[in-house]
């Protein structure tokens, strides 16, 4: 749990209490705002309540929809995705776009992707994707995902683009996983990443998104990326780096130097806090609590020297 401490250098970041509160199950999405190059997230619920300081540039992170999942932890994952999308429509500040950090589907079935796409389209927002391991289960081991979401991407679906002076990088760390290992980026992708950021000035705010956490959250459950450190080393010279991940179905944050890490809630089902259960499998909670533990995140970039603002929003308060 050392990872969750406030950094000693006084840099912006969540305090311990804040982090622990964030770790409570809640939320459907994270609203992210970039303030002075640093992103901050806030729950969607809080973002809806606040609504006073409109950020000039906001995007939204949604994750782990697991469309097709119908087990006890949430028999209607499609329904909760729909609820999340309705929440997004209510935001006072319309996000510029959506980032989906993977596990769009549960079993990579065409029908699951179709259903997810249909609902996500209702946001009317451009959407950028990276795959989760659940999106690469077709017989072609990811061909279906690439056919649908991979336009303009490289390799297994990695991509980069620029918006409002921010450089966005989507990485894929769920391909070619090695026995006994964690998430994996691989040499080709790391080479590409090095070239991708080579021409950028160190003052360019960078937002990296990938499915499995790029930092080691809990290796006993595979919650980390084997060569994630090499990617982060390539980004260390930048003044503001925000790393957005999914996979673990709960909010965990950490700040390390100029790099802020944040994982988003799922819209489908919660998973237990690291080590708090026999396995990371779907966590069954009382029906009335489920929507407090699902959510999205909204991120906004605001002028000045503050960090990106991230607002995590649960499906229900």
């Amino acid at each position: 749990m050392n990872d969750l401490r406030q950094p000693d250098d006084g840099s912006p970041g969540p305090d311990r209490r804040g982090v622990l509160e964030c770790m409570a199950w809640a939320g459907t999405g994270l609203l992210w705002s970039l303030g002075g190059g640093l992103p901050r997230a806030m729950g969607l619920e809080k973002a809806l309540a606040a609504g006073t300081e409109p950020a000039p540039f906001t995007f939204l992170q949604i994750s782990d929809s697991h469309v097709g999942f119908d087990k006890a932890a949430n028999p209607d994952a499609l329904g909760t995705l729909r609820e999340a999308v309705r929440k997004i429509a209510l935001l006072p500040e319309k996000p510029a776009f959506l980032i989906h950090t993977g596990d769009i589907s549960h079993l990579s079935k065409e029908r699951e992707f179709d259903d997810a796409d249909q609902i996500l389209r209702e946001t009317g927002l451009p959407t950028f994707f990276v795959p989760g391991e659940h999106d690469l289960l077709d017989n072609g081991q990811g061909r279906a995902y690439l056919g649908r979401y991979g336009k303009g991407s490289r390799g297994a679906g990695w991509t980069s683009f620029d918006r409002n002076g921010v450089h966005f990088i989507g990485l894929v760390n769920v391909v070619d996983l090695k026995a006994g290992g964690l998430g994996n980026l691989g040499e080709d992708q790391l080479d590409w990443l090095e070239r991708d950021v080579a021409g950028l000035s160190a003052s360019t705010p960078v937002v990296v998104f990938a499915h499995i956490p790029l930092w080691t959250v809990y290796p006993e459950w595979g919650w980390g990326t084997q060569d994630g450190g090499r990617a982060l080393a390539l980004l260390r010279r930048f003044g503001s780096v925000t790393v957005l991940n999914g996979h673990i179905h709960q909010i965990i944050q950490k700040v390390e130097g100029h790099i802020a890490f944040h994982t988003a809630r799922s819209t489908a089902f919660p998973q237990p806090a690291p080590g708090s259960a026999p396995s990371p499998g779907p966590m069954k909670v009382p029906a009335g609590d489920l929507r407090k533990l699902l959510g999205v995140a909204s991120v906004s970039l605001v002028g000045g020297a503050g960090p990106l603002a991230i607002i995590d929003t649960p499906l229900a308060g």
Partner: protein
Amino acid sequence: MTATIPSLRRWFYPAAVLTAALALGLNPATAGPADTAQERIVRIDNFTFSPEVVTVAPGTTVTWINGDDIPHTVVSPSGRFRSKTLDTDDRFTFTFPAKGEYPYFCSLHPHMTGKVVVRDAPE
């Protein structure tokens, strides 16, 4: 290791003791034919293969059953066997004809590893 358990258990039954002794004494190569060409089950529960290591005789069929609410796979890194995605209660079966060690893992959750050891029944 676990393959010895059925043999040991037999020692508790007098008739089986005789059978086993005969088998051991007269024809070690086929010791305990009942221990060999059979089936073994490996359960997948709580993101764990159980038992993690199974020791079987050549010709044994191993069946994996996924009891989790999350899909898993059974994949040999050398490519010898690879299951389809196993959803809840799905099974994968593979027969191991030759002696050797066969490590495997879940390609979705690679921290999940297991091994099938194929060798002649213990003397």
